[in-house]
């Protein structure tokens, strides 16, 4: 499918909505949105609210955003290897791990939203990676984890699946064994991406079938 899709990608840009399985939610009040909007219809939230919420510079996006050093060099190497394996199957998505200590009142989802959008984009390379980024934010002190995807990979991901994956690894998270939590998270991510890929394939096949039926109908008429 890879090359096929690449060719399709060059030829055709699909509507994200046609693939999306997870609903959009407001980072502020968490209400579900039916359509993408510049601000939340309920609470008026937009990206500008994060400036006040997080009045400091966002760290650069990297594979490990880990100011407290939860991941050792060895840990990073192991995780790096696992990510490289995943990249052989799915070259586009990038998984980043951020372990921070936040205030209890801080909403981790909003924090992820802020990081993804406020983190600097120094070059074209990062500009290409950022929409394909899957950011796992771990609030170490409060014991919480959240997943924030970029626009490009978002339509192919299932939020419920992420939640299930983190819950499955609760033991590692609770034990602050982040390296194993990360390794298992990568493995789980592979399955979630696989499911997204299958859905995408089916959708595209379906669209092609509809398209060719339409063409045949038009030809006849």
């Amino acid at each position, binding site marked *: *499918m890879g090359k096929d*899709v*690449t060719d399709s*990608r060059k030829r*055709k*840009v*699909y*509507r*994200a909505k*046609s*693939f999306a399985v997870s*609903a959009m*939610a407001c*980072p502020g009040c968490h209400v579900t*949105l039916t359509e*993408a909007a*510049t*601000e939340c219809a309920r609470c008026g*939230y937009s*990206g*500008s609210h994060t400036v006040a919420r997080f009045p400091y510079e966002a760290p650069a996006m990297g594979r490990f955003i880990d100011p407290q050093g939860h991941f050792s060099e060895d840990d990073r190497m192991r995780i790096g290897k696992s990510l490289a394996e995943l990249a*052989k*199957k*799915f*070259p*586009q998505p990038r998984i980043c791990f951020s372990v921070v200590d936040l205030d*209890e009142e801080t909403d*981790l*989802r*909003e924090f*992820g*939203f802020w990081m*993804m*959008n406020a983190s600097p984009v120094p070059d074209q390379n990062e500009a290409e990676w*950022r*929409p394909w*980024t899957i950011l796992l934010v771990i609030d*170490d002190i*409060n*014991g*919480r*984890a*959240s*997943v*924030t*995807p*970029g*626009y*490009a990979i*978002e*339509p192919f991901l299932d*939020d419920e699946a*992420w939640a299930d994956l*983190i819950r499955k690894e609760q033991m590692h998270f609770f034990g*602050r064994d982040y390296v194993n939590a990360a390794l298992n998270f990568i493995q789980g991510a592979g399955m979630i991406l*696989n499911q997204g*890929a*299958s859905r*995408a394939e089916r959708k*595209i096949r379906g669209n092609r079938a509809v398209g060719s039926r339409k063409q045949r109908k038009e030809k006849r008429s």
Partner: protein
Amino acid sequence: MRLLILFFVSFLSPLVGRESFELGNLPPAPNSGVYDPEQWLTAQARVEIEESMARAKLNWKTQVFLVVLPERPEADGDVLARAIAEGWGAGRLWGVAIHVVGDPEFPAFYAGRKDSFGWPESKENEFTADLNEALADVTGRAMREGDHRLQVQTGIHELSGELGYLGIMMSRIDRLHDKARGEGVKVYRKKQSNARFIKRLLLVLVPLALLVVGIVISRIRKKRKETRVDFYFPETSPRRRFRAPWSGGGDVIVKFGSRIQKDGSRKG
């Protein structure tokens, strides 16, 4: 006048007393098996004959009849004998001796059997041949006697004996045939039962096999999908929202236990 009437009555009575012994008009079966209305047999001979017949009936389930007639019947001997046997309730094997008083061609001896015993054809034919042979022997032995009464007596005795022997043979063949049939039925039933069992087994196994094959194929396909290489997701027009350039945020959050203890201190 009275004497004249008596004369005519005495002269005519034998004629009047004679029942017509013809096909389709047989008299009722005699209890002893001996039909001798004019008492041609002596009492002694009758007793011996009846004993032979009774023994044959009791021991070997073989019915023998003796019919003593004053004149030749119209029907053919074979036909009449069968009619007598069947009409007087003979079983599967019977013998009939017919004697016409004063007729040098009699006594005549007949034997017969039910048309089919349900045996294999070869066995049926063999038995019929044995029966005919026995009858020939009976006739031969009986006719060696010089006297008609002795011929009848000997004939009945021999006929009872021969048919008795054949009756034993018949029972043996019946038993063997039933056993063979029973085994055959058992084999047949076992075959039927096996066939039914196989059918039921197939009814279960075939869908099960299809299910297993389906599961295996599904797993192989799943495995193939899991071992994707170099998969590119299609490009989509992003659902930009909240004026955010790179991500609209996510709604996934899972708690796994705070480090902050009740007293506000941090553990770990």
